[in-house]
């Protein structure tokens, strides 16, 4: 009896486990839409987290703002544009292609191209500096003999 009681007490903590996902609104469809959008938005407080996963106060507020804007019938793009107008392109995880982000988007490809061109030049130069030697008949014979030596006869 005593043990049973103790066992029950041990189970108590599992009951106190609740009230976590209060944010989850009454409307699961809207919530899903909000999460999908917020996954591509940056939380400004904990910068490498998305707005969807951040527990910062501001992120909570912004999620609520997004929900309300969705209820008002704004499209995802309109909401994103609203947030960009307040916080700048920084809220987007995917930076848009603009005049000052060209280097960011295409820089790696440019570097790759430069590397490839450099490689081609180097290979050509090497071809010139190390010309292929033509073997004379005697040399060819010796090489063939060396290459064809049976293993046991080598030493």
């Amino acid at each position, binding site marked *: 009896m005593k043990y049973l009681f103790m066992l029950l007490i041990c189970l108590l903590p599992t009951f106190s486990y609740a009230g976590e996902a209060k944010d989850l609104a009454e409307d699961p469809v809207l919530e899903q839409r909000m999460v999908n959008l917020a996954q591509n938005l940056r939380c*400004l*407080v904990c*910068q490498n987290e998305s707005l969807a996963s951040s527990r910062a*106060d*501001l992120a909570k*507020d*912004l999620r609520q*703002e997004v929900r309300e804007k969705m209820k008002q019938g704004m499209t995802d793009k309109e909401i994103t544009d609203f947030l*960009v*107008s*307040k*916080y*700048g*392109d*920084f809220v987007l995880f995917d930076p848009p292609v603009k005049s000052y982000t060209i280097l960011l988007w295409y820089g790696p490809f440019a570097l790759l191209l430069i590397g490839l061109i450099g490689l081609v030049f180097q290979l050509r130069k090497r071809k010139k500096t190390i010309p292929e030697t033509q073997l004379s008949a005697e040399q060819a014979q010796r090489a063939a003999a060396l290459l064809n030596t049976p293993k046991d006869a080598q030493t």
Partner: protein
Amino acid sequence: MMRFWPFLVFVVLAIFLYVGLGLNPHEVPSPLINKPAPAFTRPQLYDPSKTFSSEEMKGQVWLLNVWASWCVSCREEHPVLMALSRKNIVPILGLDYKDKDEDGEAWLRNGGNPYTLVATDADGRVGIDYGVYGVPETYLIDKQGVIRYKQIGAITHENLQKKILPLIAELQAK
């Protein structure tokens, strides 16, 4: 000449990395600079039955300082604001951001009140409109109601002297 290429590349890379280290990733440039300040009407801290509207400040150069009693850097900034308010150059409007009225009042009682007027933004809505993501933040707004400067983080004596005061003088002369 060819031998120096790797060295040159290294130097350029080192410069980029060094500059990158000096940048503060928490200073996100605001897209609101040179845009009209979002209009808001909010209850006043000492008398919630009265409201403050940003429209009232049209025709004046003013500072909007977003603060909270729970904000640590605001403590750092507070003496600077006190000194500025004593000079009587510019009205400083406080926006008590996501704070309890009692806490905000207590905070000002203890440290002194540098503000011409304090409005409250309990739910942080005005904050979102202004793109606030960390307190303290301060906006310098001109006579036409356009945001001209945003200070992210605490105002220091140094950037007050070097940036904010000259800009205020310039905007007031217009």
